[in-house]
């Protein structure tokens, strides 16, 4: 169930020149399931902007975001103050489907909802982090600190396995996978994964809570709202465009 509330900016620090970690304190009671997201009202923007929740802890929630446009640019410069946030949005991952050896697959900033998931799963998952270049890698140590086995791959081959996550997955026999990342990656993961799993999608949203129908997505069950019926979908559910 969603909740609108004011959150205090506790920290907003650069992890990379273009990526920031924002810790917000306030009523996090609506943040129930990993994979859910929050929608922030940003200075100068009419519509809220959706962000995956990376972590929830007592009275704070953490978002990791990339500066992409004017809204996130302005956000990256905030060092204090309050933000109007809608929390508890979307359906999260099915934690109970993990099985004995779950695999978390992240492309780029797709790791954000998977961190909260890794903390929540009853067993420590294997985490596969894919990035373009070695210097892009984020959250490798954070996942390790949770006790996860972390495999890193880079497309430029400068760190870890040289290549894409789908190539790095070969030989792994997970019980279930949870994936988040660029659409091309999700599509490839779905095709190559040897087990059932779930994918978290991104979408341009209007409201973020199911009212405007702006983020409709074709699925095998008809058009579904990414914000309300997702953002987590089952393997095989999305009808991919070409």
């Amino acid at each position, binding site marked *: 169930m*969603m909740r609108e509330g004011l959150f205090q900016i506790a920290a907003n620090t650069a992890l990379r020149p273009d990526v920031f970690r924002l810790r917000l304190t306030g009523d996090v009671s609506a943040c129930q399931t990993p994979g859910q997201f929050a929608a922030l*009202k940003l200075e100068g923007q*009419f519509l809220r902007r959706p962000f995956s929740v990376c972590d929830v802890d007592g009275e704070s929630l953490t978002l990791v975001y990339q500066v992409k446009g004017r809204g996130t640019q302005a956000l990256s410069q905030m060092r204090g103050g309050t933000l109007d946030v809608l929390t508890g949005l979307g359906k999260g991952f099915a934690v109970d489907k993990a099985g004995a050896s779950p695999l978390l697959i992240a492309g780029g900033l797709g790791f954000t909802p998977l961190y909260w998931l890794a903390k929540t799963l009853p067993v420590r998952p294997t985490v596969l982090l894919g990035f373009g270049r070695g210097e892009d890698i984020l959250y490798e140590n954070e996942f390790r600190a949770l006790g996860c086995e972390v495999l890193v791959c880079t497309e430029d081959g400068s760190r870890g396995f040289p290549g894409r996550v789908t190539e790095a997955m070969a030989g792994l026999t997970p019980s279930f996978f949870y994936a988040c990342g660029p659409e091309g990656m999700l599509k490839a993961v779905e095709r190559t994964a040897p087990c059932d799993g779930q994918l978290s999608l991104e979408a341009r*949203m*209007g*409201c973020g809570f*199911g009212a405007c129908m*702006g*983020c*409709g997505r074709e699925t095998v069950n008809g058009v579904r709202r990414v914000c309300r019926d997702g953002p987590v979908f089952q393997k095989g559910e999305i009808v991919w465009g070409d």
Partner: protein
Amino acid sequence: MGRLSVKLCGIELDNPVIPASGTFGYGHEFAEIYDINCLGTFSFKGTTRDPRAGNPTPRIAEAASGLLNAVGLQNPGVDAVIANELPRLRAVFRKPVIANVSGFSTEDYVYTCRRLDACEEVGWIELNISCPNVHGGGMSFGTDPACAAAVVSAVRKAVTKPLIVKLTPNVTDIVSIAKAVEDAGADAVSLINTVLAMRIDLNTRRPVLTNTTGGLSGPAVFPLALRMVYQVSAAVKIPVVGLGGVSSAEDVIEMMLAGATAVQVGAANLVRPTACRDIIEALPGVMDRYGIENLRDIIGGAHG
């Protein structure tokens, strides 16, 4: 009757605040966070004869003080609305609702309206002859006085409930359309639907919306909507429902002074899900500040 109550086509509303079609679904998302029975009523998602998936995404874009949408009437079709949505709606909302109807031919409109007219949950029918986002229908009915009159006349004969006709601002003279639908039997008009608009992505140098164009709504259009409500209400005898960028109790009062009997709130719901409740709660205080005893007394008050 309370201080906030108004009458719309013979049905009393506890207050004039009505979530606009397409920004409120069937109410469920909002009923999660507040009791939507505080609303005057609401206009549910535009319904067509057959199910529609809507336009390809992206179909939402940001604008200064507003947004563009080109959703394109995604809805499950009138059969599913009657079978599934109205019973579920009844569980969260006890008052009569406005059934918003769109179509691609006069036969479509008549069929869908007739079906919804028979539903006890429905208090009014709002005929959308103004959707800018579907081709070969919608707005094309609302841009020509004769076409608008023809579809309204056909629907008027087919339904028993009050018929509100939703008008597009994308015309040279909205007053002539309003008069034409009044003459054809409309019981009220609602205006404005969204303003045809577009954005271009500087990175791709292509339109942001896959549909190229979309409808602009939000505070950006409020003064434009207010002007049209003022002009139309001066020219017709039937009630006018004002909408377009209304976001506060002050905006509601301004719309009513311009001539609106009731006021719809659209884009504001998408940004602040409690917007309508907040407006209703703020109204008595704002009325006190401006010396307004009863809202119904100020309708059209700005006309000299």
